[in-house]
């Protein structure tokens, strides 16, 4: 054990550390501009297409078919994450990239309550079930 760690433990009267995880709820996270920029990159869409490893589509097939007629826009599956940048506040809320994007029409939004879904995911993550 490192000398400084041992000295700290001695001061605290402890013999070992307890590791604490700082797991934030996703809905409470800061919206960094980098996150927003990534969500606007259509190449990330295949993560949604093949969310389960081994059960999705080969990257090339996804990329080749992304522009097929009648297909949803490639970034559409990430609307759940993306929509967080459409609200007020957040580090990325005023970016030029957002200004260039048209406002999502109601039919483009996912039918479910996205925030509730994200809250559920965060809860599962907190419980270690995800």
């Amino acid at each position, binding site marked *: 054990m490192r000398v400084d760690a041992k000295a700290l433990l001695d001061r605290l009267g402890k013999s070992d550390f307890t590791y604490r*995880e700082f*797991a934030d709820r996703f809905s409470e*996270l800061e919206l*960094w501009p980098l996150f927003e920029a*990534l969500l606007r990159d259509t190449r990330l869409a295949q*993560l949604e297409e*093949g969310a389960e490893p081994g059960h999705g589509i080969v990257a*090339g097939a996804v990329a080749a078919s992304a522009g097929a007629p009648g297909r949803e826009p490639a970034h559409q599956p990430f609307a759940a994450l993306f929509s967080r940048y459409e609200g007020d506040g957040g580090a990325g809320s005023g970016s030029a990239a957002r200004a260039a994007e048209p406002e999502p029409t109601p039919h483009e939004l996912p039918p479910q309550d996205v925030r509730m879904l994200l809250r559920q995911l965060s809860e599962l993550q907190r419980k270690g079930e995800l």
Partner: protein
Amino acid sequence: MALLLCHSSKGGTGNTFVAAHLALALVEHGADVTLLSTAAMDSLPLHFGLPPSTRLPGFNAGADRAVVASGISLRNDPRAPADPDFAATLRDLGFLDNGDRVLVLDVAAGDLGLARALLPLARAHVCTLPAAPESLSLLPDYLDIERGCWSDHSVVAINMLDETRKLTRHTAAFLRELLGARLVGRVRRDEAVPEALASLQYLSRYAPASAALADVAALARAVAPMLERPTLAEQIVPGRSWIA
């Protein structure tokens, strides 16, 4: 032989650490494992408590030159990235045959061409990333069919995770949401890892209670079932297991 490809989008992510510990975990579960590094400057021996002067035998070297650590045959072939027939050589030497052995390939980030060539032959591809802006920024390129290295068999492991840091915490949460089931594990930042390297000891011996050690073991448990799946290029014999 199941091929487990370890390749990351950038250097310094701990790819070799993860490859070494995946190999160790697979051996503990009864697999016959060969671990091959293709780096010209190879730090792989250090992860097995071997001194820096250790020179690992080439891929084609005979058994008399083998370096075996914890039951793993360690190899190094820095010529592989420049060898257009490397994948064919793997096949010719039986490394891609159906069987009960596992070949863990530690491919340096810069050897993207080799990783792309091997991707269709791998039953699993583990990309190790720190939860950092640089790693995030490279994700779109890494997933790009023309430029990157990503397939249906690719998964991500977050490494050197320190969730006491705000940006790291947020980045990790973002990756969790973004990657979903593709994120198969996280390894916490742990000073015991470099200390074990400096001590020329296995991490499991130097710090049995290491957080990183427990995390990488959990990662191995998540990755191991993937080795039962067929590669993208071919099907395996049904019912055949990589575990002896």
